[in-house]
């Protein structure tokens, strides 16, 4: 499934455009990361892509079909959204929470059936948190909650996952856990992902393409290793960095090391 944004333009209310004329494309099984400093509108962009906010101009295309022409239940079967894990007002159990992901398949007045429960359980297993099945979402760690939300997204058997900073606020191990699950989903299920992140190193690690956002509607889109360069990071983040190559057991990797704040932004 191919997701494409054409001339995407958005701003709040009557305000100036947060971003204008964004053009990018995510092919089947590709990962796109969206990088940018705080407050530049990364989460807003995700919501525009998903149609939760209306583009001022331009459109999201799914397989060349305008997204707002697709019925919501079909749209949300193909595309799943993983929001940032927040405190819940009514903490449901992990299984109850994951089961909610089956909603696009259920009629207006029906509750999940046994097979839906089984699908939810499989999704929970898939992200490796079976032991938490009946725990309250209020009593698990931030990393575990993030995995719960990913499991919930998987229950609708999506072709595209959209994740909002899935590794923020997590410790090193949990960050890796989330990244590895995303890599696994890409490899085994050919699921495409759009991921907001604060970490250029994570983008270097997992993504094919990167969209870099800066203030005043500046943006860059292209292959990740072509976008994440010392020069671009300095321009968009105001940070002097060095990119180093290193070899691990796993692969030949690029790492970005922040040196100091750049004087002029």
């Amino acid at each position, binding site marked *: 499934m191919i997701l494409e944004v054409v001339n995407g333009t958005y701003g709040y209310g009557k305000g100036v455009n947060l971003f204008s004329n964004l053009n990018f494309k995510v092919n089947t099984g590709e990962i796109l990361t969206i990088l940018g400093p705080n407050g530049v509108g990364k989460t807003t962009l995700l*919501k525009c892509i*998903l149609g*939760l906010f209306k583009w001022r101009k331009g459109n999201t295309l799914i397989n060349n079909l305008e997204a707002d022409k697709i019925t*919501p*239940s079909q*749209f*949300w*079967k193909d595309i*799943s*959204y993983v*929001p940032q894990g*927040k*405190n*819940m*007002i*009514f*903490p*449901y*159990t992990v299984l*109850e929470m994951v089961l*909610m*992901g089956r*909603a*696009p398949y259920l009629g*207006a*007045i*029906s*509750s*999940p059936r046994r097979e839906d429960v089984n699908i939810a359980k499989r999704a929970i297993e898939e992200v490796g948190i*079976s*032991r938490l*099945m*009946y725990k309250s979402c209020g009593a698990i760690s931030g990393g575990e909650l993030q995995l719960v939300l990913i499991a919930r997204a998987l229950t*609708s058997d999506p072709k595209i996952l959209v994740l909002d900073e899935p590794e923020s606020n997590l410790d090193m191990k949990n960050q890796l856990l989330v990244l590895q699950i995303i890599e696994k989903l890409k490899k085994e299920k050919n699921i495409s992902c759009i991921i907001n992140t604060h970490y250029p190193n994570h983008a270097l690690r997992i993504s094919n393409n990167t969209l870099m956002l800066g203030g005043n509607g500046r943006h860059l889109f292209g292959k990740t290793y072509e976008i994440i360069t010392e020069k671009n990071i300095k321009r968009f983040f105001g940070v002097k960095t060095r990119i180093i190559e290193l070899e691990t057991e796993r692969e030949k990797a690029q790492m970005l090391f922040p040196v100091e704040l750049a004087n002029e932004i």
Partner: protein
Amino acid sequence: MELTEKVLIDISEIQEHEAKKRRKRFMVFICMIVVSIGCMLISLCIGRYSITPLTAYKVLMSKIIPVKQSWSDIEETIIMNVRLPRIILAMFIGGGLSAAGASNQAMFGNPLVSPHILGVSYGAGLGAALGILLSGNIAIIQSMAIMFGILGIMMTYIISKRKSGMQLFMLVLSGTIVGALFQALISLIKYVADPEEKLPTIVYWLMGSLSGTSANDLKLGIPLITIGLVMLYVIRWKMNILSLHEDEAKSLGVNVNRLRAIIIVATTVIAATAVSLCGIIGWIGLVIPHLARMMVGNNHKHLIPASICLGSFYLLMIDNIARTITAAEIPLSILTAIVGAPFFIFLLRKTGGKWNDS
């Protein structure tokens, strides 16, 4: 090898846990139903004219199968025309208000709202007060209460309506404003009402009472409350999703605005009907859902039926106290608050208001 064993143990533990939880929930529901029915029978017997349980049972059964009459006509009249309608109405209104409260809490994602939040109840209260002021005929009072209840929700809705659709924050604010406005108008009516005759009736009505419930009230109340309850019952699982953040709920493929509309219509019907029949009864819609949550958890699939059971039981008990503890009837909202407030304080202390941070 060790690892596989550990995993197996984990899984069997989980399955056992699941079975245990399901059994517990089942027991809770059985208990609720048994206790409610028991309470109903006991309620038939207590009151100024006491009747033995056996007689009450026989009278009830005589309506289904022929039983030789061994009781006086007075006893039959008291049971069938006075106590039974009152008990049934108490249970329907208690269950209805609790389910409405739980649904509103889910819809607003806020555990501190009640069915009175949208201005329906005070609108209905104003209608009832006006009806008493203008005529005193019970049919007029009831129909005015329902009309003004609907007027209340319509005002709330129109004030909060924006181009971008329904906004919860605006809805709560508008509901509070409309409620305050109607409360002021109720005060105005009390101020101008004849203090000898009309004023006590209005005050007494607004404090809530089930005394004088007749079979006619049931004909109006039961179908309406049942409609509201059925609407809430069939969408109860979706309420789980509705209680999440709005974008999250939408991203789960749920038609958020339609669900909210269903809940608003259903709770309006329930609250307006309740006020038209027995005045404004506070606390039930706020406190009972929390009690139910403690017993069956947050999942609305179980929470709504549990709220209905507990709510009907609670209002029945409150009404029993109201009609038996003194010679004169004690208004219901006094008792629901006297019993409800300490409980709510206890809850707040125990949880530290923790369920309130979003």
